[in-house]
């Protein structure tokens, strides 16, 4: 009984250590995180600049283009950050450090949890960068602190989802290159969603695709505090989407890890 308890404590410590290790790597080589900051900021600049006139159209939802595009940029950055966390695992696999982790006694589950936790923390960096950058350029937060919180929850958990999907692919293909594919998938998944315009603006296939794309719910969760007050009716579909995506991707990643490491 007490051994079960200490086992759990050990698992928790291992997961925390793996997570901390990722953060230390960022501290050791901050360059690693630069693209994760620059990319979403550049996306925000591009989208707000090119499409600023969208706010003039009836029904866009906001008169401030930053309020619309910043959450989209932050989510995109967070997703890349999540995939970047998988990049550390890919390094480990390629350099053999992964073997050292696998030689840990006890369950392998904390190894997975550690990487997932790291991806969530990593996502805070681009989210914060985009948030303050956009704020400086005139973004407002009518939803207040809860609105900001919704943004952070959405970005961190979407990073977790894409980290898990990335791990599924990594455990199967075992190479750093596989992550390139992952980034294309991620960009596409966010693109075919309500990134730039609301669903009411869409027609044809996109309207259907965006409606059934779970990322739409996540985007709406992250954006609500910038369009108005936070509402439970917008919050729960986002949370459900995040939870179910994490659950499915997590199950697949866990299976992949067990297959990779007996």
């Amino acid at each position, binding site marked *: 009984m007490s051994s079960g308890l200490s086992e759990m404590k050990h698992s928790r410590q291992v997961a925390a250590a793996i997570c901390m290790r990722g953060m230390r*790597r960022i501290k050791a080589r901050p360059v690693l995180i630069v693209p994760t900051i620059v990319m979403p900021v550049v996306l925000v600049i591009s989208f707000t600049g090119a499409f600023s006139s969208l706010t003039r159209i009836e029904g866009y939802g906001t008169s401030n283009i930053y309020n619309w595009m910043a959450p989209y940029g932050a989510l995109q950055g967070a997703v890349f950050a999540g995939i970047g966390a998988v990049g550390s695992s890919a390094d480990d696999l390629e350099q053999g450090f992964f*073997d050292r982790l696998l*030689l840990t006694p006890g369950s392998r589950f904390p190894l997975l949890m550690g990487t997932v936790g790291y991806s969530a923390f990593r996502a805070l960096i681009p989210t914060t960068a985009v948030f303050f950058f956009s704020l400086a350029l005139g973004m407002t937060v009518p939803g207040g602190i809860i609105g900001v919180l919704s943004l952070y929850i959405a970005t961190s958990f979407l990073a977790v989802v894409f980290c898990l999907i990335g791990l599924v692919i990594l455990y199967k293909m075992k190479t750093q290159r596989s992550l390139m594919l992952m980034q294309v998938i991620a960009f596409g998944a966010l693109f075919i969603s309500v990134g730039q315009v609301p669903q009411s603006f869409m027609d044809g296939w996109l309207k259907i695709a965006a409606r059934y794309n779970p990322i739409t719910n996540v985007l709406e969760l992250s954006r609500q505090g910038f369009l108005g007050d936070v509402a439970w009716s917008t919050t729960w579909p986002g949370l459900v989407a995040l939870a179910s995506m994490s659950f499915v991707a997590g199950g697949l990643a866990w299976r992949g890890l067990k297959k990779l490491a007996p």
Partner: protein
Amino acid sequence: MPSRVQALIRKIDMKSVVEANGLRRTFGDLVAVDGIDLSVSEGEVFGFLGPNGAGKSTAVRMLTTLLRPTDGQAFVGGYNVVSQASEVRKVIGVALQDAAIDPLMTGHELLKLQAVLHGIPRQSARDRGEELLERVGLSAAADRRVGTYSGGMRRRLDLALSLIHEPKILFLDEPTTGLDPTSRTALWEEVRRLNTEFGTTVFLTTQYLEEADELAGRIAIIDYGKIVREGSPADLKASIGAPTLRIDIDPQNLDKAQSVLSEFGIDRPARDGRVAIGLDGGVAKVAEVVNALEKQGVEVLHLELDAPSLDDVFAEATGRRLEGAETPDE
């Protein structure tokens, strides 16, 4: 026959800590390890000698629970490597080929992480970490990123990491491949000390004859996934035949020397001013030979004893030579 009896005796009075029966691993059509049997006793230094791609690493990966065997069974520390993998991982320390170390972390950070992975309480982890760093001579470099370490330093850190939880059995997969001679000797020294001072059982793989000869009390030669010879280096070499003893003497004593030497072994060809025999009994007999010669008034000017090498053993077993076939990677 007698060796079978010896083996049986050894099995009875010593605990076998690494045991494999018909261990086999295939990758598609490739048979990497083709049904090997092993038994390593507690406190032994066991060497696994073979060329690149012979199946050494695959065997080690199976014994250390990193790879599932296709067939056969293995026990390490008394635990089944498949069904009791977690128990196995608690009692083994592993330093894998190429020193799998994250270049972005410092020595200290890696030791701390390793301690957490093995569930060692913080305070004892710190003390033990310092002690290990001291022992492998890395105390001064411990706060530097591993990326700045030399190859030898990486291997020594790798060794320290594998020892943090005081394992009873240490697996070293090609611990000195690619190292310069000085670093190599230093690592040998440390492994030897671990074995003698702490009684750690060492299972090492190597492609270097000298390393197997220097370190291992017993070796197995592996080729194409199969163990082709097994025994102590001395026994294996002895099985090749007597070493050649060459003696330089004054040419006028040639006949006298020849008759003395014929009692110690069969004649071997030699150039002028020299006599040579296959010396039965090897090194132990050299003094006796010299004494016998002096008794007859033959002065020994120079003496050479060329023992059969492990390479001769390898050649005899496989038809190929290991020496010179070594390709230091990178």
